[in-house]
């Protein structure tokens, strides 16, 4: 077979060599079409998978970040919860009542409203001849958070403020300030729900106690309880 007859052929202008045969390229070659689709599909899946992996990886980092934030918030909740429990302990309430000048009267008087009768002999607590227990006799080594007369007054003032105070409190708590009520220094600066004072460091100096004074409406320290 000579080359001349082949040159006379007008179409197709391209051919694929397969073995010793040439296959004419047709516009609607189904095998080529399927192969192309498959390759494109695989490529698409590969790229999609890659993108998904990247997205997932980012999600994992975001998840880790959120978990850390959750942990931080849980810590806030725990610190505040411990304070509330300490403040609402019987020892603290008794101390707070005494700080307000309240005394348990060992000579109570009962009134029977229906018969308008008075039972018992009315005696002021301070004049009572009976034994008066004037101090806390039930130990509580966990009682680090105390309500003082001054902080009670501040609590009552704070309770009268608008709910904006409560919002400030929530924000302050979320930023993660330490909350410890000082028993010796009832923070005269405390005029909002939670007030941070002396937080952080000054030029790497010795750390000063980070104090947040609990005087807001969030803590049940009011004497009316």
């Amino acid at each position, binding site marked *: 077979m000579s080359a001349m007859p082949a040159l006379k052929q007008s179409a197709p202008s391209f051919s694929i060599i397969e073995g010793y045969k040439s296959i004419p390229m047709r516009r609607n070659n189904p095998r080529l079409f399927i192969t192309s689709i498959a390759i494109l599909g695989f490529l698409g899946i590969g790229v999609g998978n890659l993108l998904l992996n990247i997205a997932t990886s980012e999600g994992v980092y975001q998840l880790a970040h959120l978990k850390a934030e959750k942990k931080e918030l849980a810590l806030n909740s725990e610190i505040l919860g411990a304070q509330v429990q300490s403040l609402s302990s019987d020892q603290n309430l008794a101390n707070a009542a005494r700080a307000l000048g309240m005394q348990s009267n060992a000579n109570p008087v009962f009134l029977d409203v229906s018969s308008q009768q008075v039972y018992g002999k009315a005696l002021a607590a301070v004049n009572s001849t009976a034994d008066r227990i004037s101090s806390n006799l039930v130990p509580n080594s966990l009682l680090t958070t105390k309500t003082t007369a001054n902080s009670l007054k501040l609590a009552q003032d704070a309770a009268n403020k608008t709910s904006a105070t409560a919002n400030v409190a929530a924000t302050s708590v979320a930023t993660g300030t330490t909350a410890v009520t000082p028993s010796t220094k009832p923070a005269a600066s405390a005029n909002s729900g939670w007030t941070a004072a002396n937080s952080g460091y000054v030029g*790497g100096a010795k750390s000063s106690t980070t104090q947040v004074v609990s005087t807001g409406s969030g803590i049940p320290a009011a004497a009316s309880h």
Partner: protein
Amino acid sequence: MKNRPTSVDDIRLRRLMAVVMVLAVIFGLRLVQFQIVEAPKINAESFAKRAVTTTIPAMRGDIVDVHGKVLATTVLAYDVNVDPTMVAPFDRTVAGATSTISVQQATVEIADILKVQPAELAPKLLGTSHYSNLFKQANGSQYRRLTALDIPWLFFEAVPHRIYPNGALAGNLLGFMSNDGRPLEGLELAQDKCLAGVDGKETYERGVDGIKIPTSRQIAVAPQNGGTLKLSIDSDLQYYAQQVMAHYVQKERADWGSAVVVEAKTGRILTAAEFPSVDPNNFTATPDANRRSRIFQATFEPGSTLKTVTAATAIDQGVATPTTQVIAPQSTFVAGGYRISDSHVHTTEHLTLQGVLIESSNTGIIQIGKRVPYETRFNYWQKFGLGERTAVNFAGEGSGIIHQTTDGVSVYTTMFGQAMTVTPIQTAFLYQTIANMGVRLSPELLLNCKSATGKVTPAENKIKPVRVLKPSTARQVISMLENDVTQKGGVGSTAAIPGYRIGGKSGTAQIAKDNGIGYVSLHAISFIGMAPAEDPQYVLAVTIYKPRTVSNSIGATPPFKDILQQVLRTYRVPPSTTKSPNIPAKW
């Protein structure tokens, strides 16, 4: 066409192919070995290198009082550790300014937060190991402040930590835990099944940066938190009673004192106050002998408070009434030549059974008691719950001792509460039986256990109510107890609360020597009573052990009165509208 090689090249090609085939087979076999035969082992090794397993600690359940107030709870505490090999000065940036923090300065900062001396911490920072514990169980505030220091060689480990927000309030009942989380005493120990959780664990594969590999294999077993144990204790009343007992026990220089308040018609123990009482937050500060609950564990001879039982038995058996007349001398001889005397000096008196109780006459009560055979009295004691632990089954609870058979003199001495022992909780339920019209109820200290999933189960086995006395007997005994308080002459009159009908009986019990022969000079004084007597709702049993400033039960009525007043105030019991019956004491 021939298959035989025709040239040297063909031969070489075939040999090469053979070698390749052999290698392929070898590699194939090796592949099978790795991929199939040893695959699980290799996978496990590989996984172990990348995987991290962390224990997720289960939180122990709370103990709450009858109103849900938390008495014991678990929080996370933080063990503070360092890697001594990494301890070195470091840079800290505050507000844009960077400064170098020396180890010494960092130590001072840590010590300040942990409230310890820097000198205590310094030695722990030295060494060649990678681990050194600086401080155990720092609280959340301390943890936050420590992390804010940003010290690169400081590490933290969160561990569950048991706290008791109310300190020694009901401490003797609650018990306490060791630092490593083991229950040691009280309800913590006895109710561990309810309170303890099951730790979970999490295993995952992590990358170089410590972050979990997203598509990696993960194993997670969720922790099961412990259940919430609800007690019948009313913590406010418990606090008040503990305050009162602490005051009087110290004032009377006694060894210890207890006060039990029981709801007469349910058997619920509203208060089980003791002094001394352990603060479970810091139990090592309390001497070992004072760390447990004497209300359930201490046994002693009850003394005269048992005369009420002797009188009730005689009335129930139909051999006596409150007005039965006896002649009570100062002392009298009984079988075996033993002499039985009254504690106070008096001339021979003509007393009714009522008068015997008011005067707390030993010589009088034996004349009533001997009308009932000892065996019958023993059966009554059993029905009253003596000689066996209560259904509360408190950790280390005492049963007390009653003897089925006895020698000559004990037949008589048991009539006024000697030669037998009881626990404070048993004495309270002697009077609960009377207050509840003769029916003894199961003491109820634990109301229920609520699991983390919300399932509520009864926390203890209750016994069925036991009919001990006829209702008419109980009513007569209550009236006698009322007269013990309303009539002058006895200790009981000092327990009166204006406006209320109160019934009660005093006891000044001798305390046997350790060797069991004879008695020591100090006493166990008690006063047990109920209010309001027209329809008893509450029973209060006060015991003070070995007071040194008073020698008889006159020392037990002031705390009794004080606590009972608080009970009436707390539960808003209206004043009585009827008067106590008057039963003659003498004839």
